[in-house]
């Protein structure tokens, strides 16, 4: 089934993976990861020796405009903690963050939002959305001040912005007053994305952007990432899916138990290299 209508029935042995995807999405996906080559611009985010006691330490990397930096590693390696530290949810305890060459101390998300950062968290039900609020309120939440004049919300501006954002992301919903919890996982993720894109961020942090969503939306999210990068946005993508990391990233960094254990360019990165960087400790541990 696709978009609420019946498409085709085929026997499981006659259908290939590509056929199935074509039927589900409605078009042939020639390249699952439509990453365009973009010439990276200036360094916009520079993280040096970032540390949060108990979570990670000595994390350093640079992120350039128009670049997608993949952050790989096992679950629990501290990737989400690094993202949260940069976004100010759980501020770093040591190290420095520079944005466009200026040193900043990010201690709260509202500060991060002002600096042009956006963070799409890994758990959209728990952290990304307010499921019991409608689509409009969810989208406008981080930028309510933009829709408010002296604290008073301008309903029309808010509605229009939310509508446009949802339309652009091709969210499937009855109307913009529908509760976020009534939507499918993929559509919820689109809401989270529209919500953060409506803040016009310069740096977008995506934490497991395609976890638990259908193939069609997955492809849409990847296409969106590629487009945003080509428009000059800097993207930091955390993912546990190696094909996604390899397919979408310009460069890859690997974390293991709170330390950076690998740094590869797109050309260098292979599945083996990333896995070995992500699991070194385990091999060493068993060797001892």
């Amino acid at each position, binding site marked *: 089934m696709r978009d609420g209508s*019946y498409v085709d029935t085929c026997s499981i042995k006659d259908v290939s993976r590509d056929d199935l995807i074509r039927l589900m999405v409605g078009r042939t996906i020639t390249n699952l990861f439509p990453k365009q080559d973009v010439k990276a611009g200036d360094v916009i985010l520079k993280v040096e020796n970032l540390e949060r006691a108990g979570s990670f330490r000595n994390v350093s990397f640079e992120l350039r405009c128009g670049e997608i930096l993949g952050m790989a590693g096992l679950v629990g390696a501290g990737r989400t903690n690094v993202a949260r530290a940069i976004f100010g*949810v759980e501020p770093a305890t040591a190290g420095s963050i520079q944005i466009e060459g200026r040193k900043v101390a990010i201690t*709260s*998300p509202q500060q991060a939002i002002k600096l042009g950062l956006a963070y799409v968290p890994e758990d959209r039900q728990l*952290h990304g959305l307010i499921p019991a609020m409608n689509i409009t309120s969810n989208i406008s939440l981080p930028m309510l001040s933009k829709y408010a004049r002296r604290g008073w919300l301008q309903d029309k501006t808010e509605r229009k912005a939310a509508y446009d954002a949802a339309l652009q992301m091709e969210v499937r919903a009855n109307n913009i007053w529908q509760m976020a919890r009534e939507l499918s996982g993929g559509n919820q993720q689109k809401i989270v994305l529209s919500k953060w894109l409506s803040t016009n961020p310069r740096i977008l942090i995506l934490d497991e952007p395609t976890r638990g969503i259908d193939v069609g939306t997955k492809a849409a999210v990847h296409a969106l990432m590629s487009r945003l990068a080509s428009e000059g946005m800097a993207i930091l993508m955390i993912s546990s899916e190696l094909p996604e990391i390899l397919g979408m990233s310009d460069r890859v960094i690997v974390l293991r138990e709170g330390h950076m254990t690998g740094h590869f360019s797109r050309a260098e990165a292979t599945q083996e290299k990333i896995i070995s960087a992500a699991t070194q400790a385990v091999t060493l541990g068993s060797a001892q």
Partner: protein
Amino acid sequence: MQNSTSATQSVRSSLSNLLWSLVRFREAGISIFILILVFVVTLRAPSFLTTDNFNDILLNISILAIMALAQTMVIITHGIDLSVSSMIGLVAMMVAFVVKQNPEMPVIFAVLLGMALGSVLGSFNGLIITRGNVPPIIATLGTLSIYRGLVFFYSQGTWINSFELPKNFKMLSKGTPLGLPNMVIIAILVAIVVYYFLNHTRTGRDIYAVGTNPDAAPFAGIRKERIIFLVYLLSGLLAGLAAVLWVSRFESAQTNTAAGFELQTVAASVVGGVSISGGVGTVPGVLLGALLLGIIQNSLTLIRISPFWQLAAQGLLILIAVISDKWILSRVERTKK
């Protein structure tokens, strides 16, 4: 096969929509209940349906409505303020003493003084909860006793009586320069302000967001602690206003002023559709909740039922409201699956 599934689904979704509209339009349910009650009581006691009696009811529920709205803002953030009655008691006593000693003071100063004192008490609650990380129910249970203790301490056990209060102060609540008693007009103004605050300001939206999903709110850049502190401050501020009106209306300040009133504010909110688990509640619903409580109190007196039953009736109503909420919600969950 495919058609029948979508048919069952559409039946299910329309059923779930119906249940949802019941939840969403709680106001309709209470209104119907109020009308039935009015009808039944009028049959038993015709004097119920008179302008005088209705003025009486409005006068009686004005303070309740103000404080139920304050309580609602707190409950929406998934908190509760049990100390409202003691805040009213303490501010009432302090303002009454000041008014007694300065009978010439313009009444508006008494109102402002009450609101300022209430804000201080409310901020203290807010600080304990946000800085001290104490659960709201425990924190305000503590200050419920502390503030009541301070009433005794401050007054040394004495009362302020009617003859000690200036006439213009007593008329603050009862005067009718605009047709309705001032107190009713003040309550209506408070309701309008709270309505616009909750529905049309950024902070109001943040209050709902914090209550609905406290974990997600910070990720959207909401200063959760600040919002929580603010609702307790507002609760204190409105308690201060309510205290001044209380002294003016009952023409006295006693050590036990407003004791037990906190339960009525919770009752009016919950009956009015405010969810104890946070995030849900509307101003019209709460006003109807307060009205329903007022009508029940009034009518039970009119049809000569012992005041002891009034408490029981109030309690029963709260239970019905909460249980029906849970039931409807679980039905909605089930029909969705």
